[in-house]
Structures are given as structure tokens and as C-alpha cells.
């Protein structure tokens, strides 16, 4: 009975199954096999010997990492970059969306929106290149402005103290416009009647914004905040690799760039896989905790 049912269903869905097979193969190859590759973290991996021939060393590489002199710096840099990014980068799309929503002239609004998306479409390489040219030492335009305003004349990219500022500022520049799309959509779905009632009650524009517009975005803001905080242990290497150099490792080197240097450049496969695995696990745990806390507080969660 059961087998007849199964074979009937398989025949009915035969074409669909054929259509889905390529994707399954794709994910097996590009997502799941690398997961198996994580076993390198527990081995003394030598490419010639492969996965099944290399010796097992258990938690040796993890111990190496935990006792290394760099671990404090790496964790600190990763977390701080994210914390600064959230502090400066999280409120701005919200504020921008609120202000944009208050614009009366539709044409002006659309133009401003289009302009605000532009930095998002600019590639990381282009953006870092522009930064390096404008802050070129000694004759970049921003360097000259800083000196004219009384600041120090230094090469900003060689100064560890400036790195986080440059990274976060450029991140905000790129992300504000695009990041506001979601909030703008929420705002446009508020019924105009609510504003009318507020106007009748004597609320001015600013009060309308604070008491109507802002609360309507509560759920969206909470969700985005969870996601941001949940990602606090995760910083991508792509932009940092373009921006950092040995002089700024002190503040610029994060876990993912360390994995890149030790793993790809130095070919220390096992060690760097272990560090990467540690990063992923911590990431997941933090996201989980953030989700649980938020659920307790606001009944909002992403699960």
C-alpha cells in the first residue's frame, strides 16, 4: 500500500524531481562538502594526504589559537568594529527614512532617494580607491582640508587610530540609502487618517513623526536590531583586506582577515579552519541568544 503510494507520487512529480536535482547537486558540492572540510580543523591536514589520510589532532589547533597572543586583539577588533557600525550605522537609515517620508514634493523625494542609493552600487574596490586617493598623503583633498582645519598631517591609512573611523564612516556612507528602503516601505503603509487625527489634536510635524511614524516601525527596527547584534562576531574580510596593512593590524585585523592571512597566504589550512570554525560557532550562538532575548522582551523574533 505505502510503496504503491510512493511510486505514484514519484511518477507524478517526476519532471519536478528532474528539475530540482541540479540544485541539490549544487548545494552538495558548494555548501555541504565544504562543511565536511571543517574536519580539517581537527586534523593535521596535509593536502597530499587529503581528508582521510591526515592525522587527527583533536583540539590542538583550537588550543593554539586560544593561547596565541593575537586572540584578544582579533576578538576586540571584530566586536568593536561591529559595535561602532551599529551605533553610527543603525539609527541613520531610520532617521533618513523618517525625514524622507516627510517630504511633500514627490519629485524631490524621488531624486533624493535615487541619490542616496548611489553609494550602495559603488563597489568596495572603487570606494576604497576613492578614499585612498582623496586621503592621499600628502596631497589628497581631504588630507589638505584636515591640515587647513588644524589637524595633523599624516597618512590616514597608516594610522591605527584612524582605521575604525574610516571603515565605519565609509560603511555608513554606502549603506544608509539602501538600508532605508525597508523602513520607507513600512512608513508608506501607514494610513493617512492617523496623521489627520494627530493634526486635529494639535500635533506639529515633529510630534507626528515621533508619535506616529516612529512607533509604526517598531517591529521592523527590532528585527533589524536583532540581526545586527546577532552578527556582532562577524566581520567580512573583503573591505578590510583592501584597507589594512601591517601598520594598522593593531586595530584593523579581525578574525576573518586573520583566517585569510594564515590560511590562504600562509597555507596553514588546519589552523585557519579551526579559527574559522570557532568564529562560525560563536556567531551562531550569539545570534541564537540575541533572538531569545528579543523574544522575551518584545515578542519579536526571526524564528
Amino acid at each position, binding site marked *: 500500500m505505502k510503496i504503491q503510494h510512493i511510486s505514484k507520487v514519484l511518477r507524478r512529480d517526476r519532471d*519536478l*524531481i528532474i528539475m530540482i536535482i541540479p540544485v541539490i547537486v549544487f548545494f552538495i558540492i558548494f555548501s555541504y562538502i565544504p562543511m565536511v572540510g571543517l574536519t580539517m580543523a581537527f586534523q593535521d591536514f596535509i593536502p597530499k594526504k587529503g581528508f582521510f589520510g591526515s592525522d587527527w589532532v583533536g583540539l590542538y589547533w583550537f588550543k593554539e589559537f586560544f593561547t596565541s597572543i593575537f586572540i584578544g586583539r582579533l576578538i576586540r577588533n571584530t566586536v568593536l568594529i561591529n559595535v561602532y557600525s551599529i551605533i553610527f550605522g543603525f539609527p541613520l537609515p531610520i532617521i533618513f527614512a523618517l525625514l524622507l517620508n516627510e517630504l511633500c514634493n514627490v519629485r524631490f523625494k524621488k531624486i533624493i532617494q535615487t541619490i542616496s542609493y548611489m553609494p550602495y552600487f559603488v563597489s568596495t574596490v572603487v570606494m576604497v580607491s576613492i578614499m585612498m586617493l582623496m586621503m592621499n598623503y600628502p596631497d589628497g583633498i581631504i588630507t589638505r582640508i584636515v591640515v587647513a582645519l588644524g589637524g595633523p598631517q599624516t597618512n590616514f591609512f597608516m594610522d591605527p587610530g584612524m582605521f575604525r573611523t574610516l571603515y565605519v564612516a565609509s560603511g555608513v556612507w554606502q549603506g544608509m540609502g539602501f538600508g532605508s528602503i525597508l523602513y520607507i516601505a513600512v512608513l508608506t503603509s501607514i494610513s493617512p487618517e492617523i496623521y489627520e487625527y494627530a493634526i486635529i489634536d494639535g500635533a506639529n510635524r515633529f510630534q507626528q513623526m515621533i508619535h506616529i511614524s516612529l512607533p509604526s516601525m517598531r517591529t521592523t527596527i527590532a528585527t533589524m536590531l536583532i540581526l545586527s547584534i546577532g552578527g556582532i562576531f562577524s566581520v567580512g574580510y573583503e573591505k578590510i583586506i583592501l584597507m589594512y596593512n601591517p601598520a594598522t593590524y593593531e586595530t584593523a585585523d579581525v578574525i576573518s582577515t586573520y583566517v585569510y592571512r594564515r590560511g590562504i597566504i600562509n597555507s596553514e589550512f588546519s589552523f585557519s579552519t579551526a579559527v574559522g570554525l570557532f568564529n562560525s560557532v560563536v556567531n551562531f550562538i550569539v545570534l541564537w541568544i540575541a533572538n531569545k532575548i528579543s523574544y522575551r522582551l518584545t515578542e519579536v523574533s526571526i524564528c
Partner: protein
Amino acid sequence: MLNNFSVSLRKGIRHTHVFDIVNIAVMLFISAVMIYPMLYVLSMSFSSFDAVQTNKVTFYPIGFSLTAYKMALSGSGILTFFSNSVFYAAVGSLMHVSFTMLAAYPLSFENFCLRKVVNVFILITMFFGGGLIPFFILIKDLGLYNTRWAILLPGLTSAWSIIISRIYIKESVGISLIEAARIDGGNEFWIFLRIVMPISLPIIAYLGLTSAVGHWNSYFNALLFLQDRDKQPIQVYLMRVIIQNTRSDFTAPAGPEQIAMQHYLQQIKYATIIIATAPILLVYPFLQKHFVKGIMIGALK
């Protein structure tokens, strides 16, 4: 109700509140900050040599000149890198759209026997992964190192693309339409190609455009896997020229031309940036509508 609304609306518009003035000022300031870097680079690239050397350029080109562009475009193979980027963007997005839609179609049916399993299978990949090192070793072991496939294959699809595509197909293509086609005897491939795809143009636009822009702007995989210069995209070239500051990339036959190029080096960098990013900047205002739509669909999820 409508009468009240229009009355209050008119009352509101009659006065320009202080709020509006401040708002407009803030918006203009933000726009200026967004535009200025691009404007500066553009101005520097079109200015004359003297203006650049004496730091006169601020908001607009001074002493209009195309020399920087002539030099940037000649003698360093930039056109190869540019056409490589075009190749990866065009072919990559075509592959991404086809592959993703092909997978999303079966997954949009409630009673597809493998639906739940495959959905979970794909969802897991959004949260777990091997990381950079296993990925690197995988590409090498697959024999894809230093081939164009190293760029094209990993970008075939993603969990995110499949999820929003299957949501879209489910919501926007009526199941009744498909049922009718099935009764009429069409097989699934025919239904997919002739019925579902044409109706799914908005999501196809989103997939294609995000994939194309993503490929055009990416540099890391190419940096990692492409050793041959003739396969490299333009972002890698830009990175070498400006961020790594390797002068050897500006090759020209030795002689007065090469010496002239050294003088113009700073300005050539500005021109190269514009060349690398002009296609995106020219096209993005028309694309943004689709990006926004895609995000909306994803937000629902």
C-alpha cells in the same frame, strides 16, 4: 472623510513649516555628501594636468582635458579587464537566473513530494557553511583554479535567491493557471518555460540585475583564483593599480609615451575609477525599482 482629508491637506500645505525647511536642508546636505566623492573623482579625471598638479580642482573640472582617459585606455590592457567584467556579469547573471528559477519552480508547489526536505536542505546552508578555507581547497580540488568557472559556478544560485523566487512564483503565478495547463497535457518543462517564466519577469529582473551588479563589483574570488591576467575582471585591475599601487601595470612602449604616463599617473587613477564604475552609475537609477521590489518580497519572509 475625503472632504476632511483634503481640507486638512490644504491647511497643511498652505504654510511651509520650519520643519519642512530644516528637512529640505538636511536632505540636501546628505545628498551632497553622497555625491561629492564621485563628483570629485569625475572632476579630477577631466581636468587639465596643471590644474591637477596645483590642486585647483574642487567641484568641477578645470581646464577640460581628455588626456587622462586616453592614457588610461591605452597600453595597459584595461579593455581586456573591462570585457572580462562584462563577460562575468552577463554570463553569470544569465546562469544565475536560469538555475534559480529552475529550482524555485518545483519548490513553489505545496504538494511537491520533496518540498519540505529540499527547503530545509537549502535553509541550512544559509546558517552554516564551511568557511573560506574549505571553499578555497574545494575550488582547487575541483580543478577550477585559474579558470573562469571559479567565478561563474559558485554564483549559480544562493539560498536567498531560491527562497524569494519560490515565494514569488507561489504568490504571483496562480496555481489554477498551472493546473489548467497540466490538464491540457503540458509537461512541467513546457509549463515552466512558456507560462511561469514570462509571468515572473519582475523576479527575473531582480535576480538578473542583482547578480550582474554583484559580479561586476566583486573582486575577491577573482583575486583568489585567477592567476592569468587575461581572465581577471576590472575590479582586480583597479585594486592593483590604486590600492597596491603597482606601477608596472601601466605599460607602454618605452620612450616619451611611458614618461608622459608616469607624470599623469595620479590622474590616470581617477580616470580608471570612472571607467570601472561608469556602467553601474549610468544604469543604476533604472535598476533601483527592481532592487526595491526584490527586497520587499524578501522582507515578507
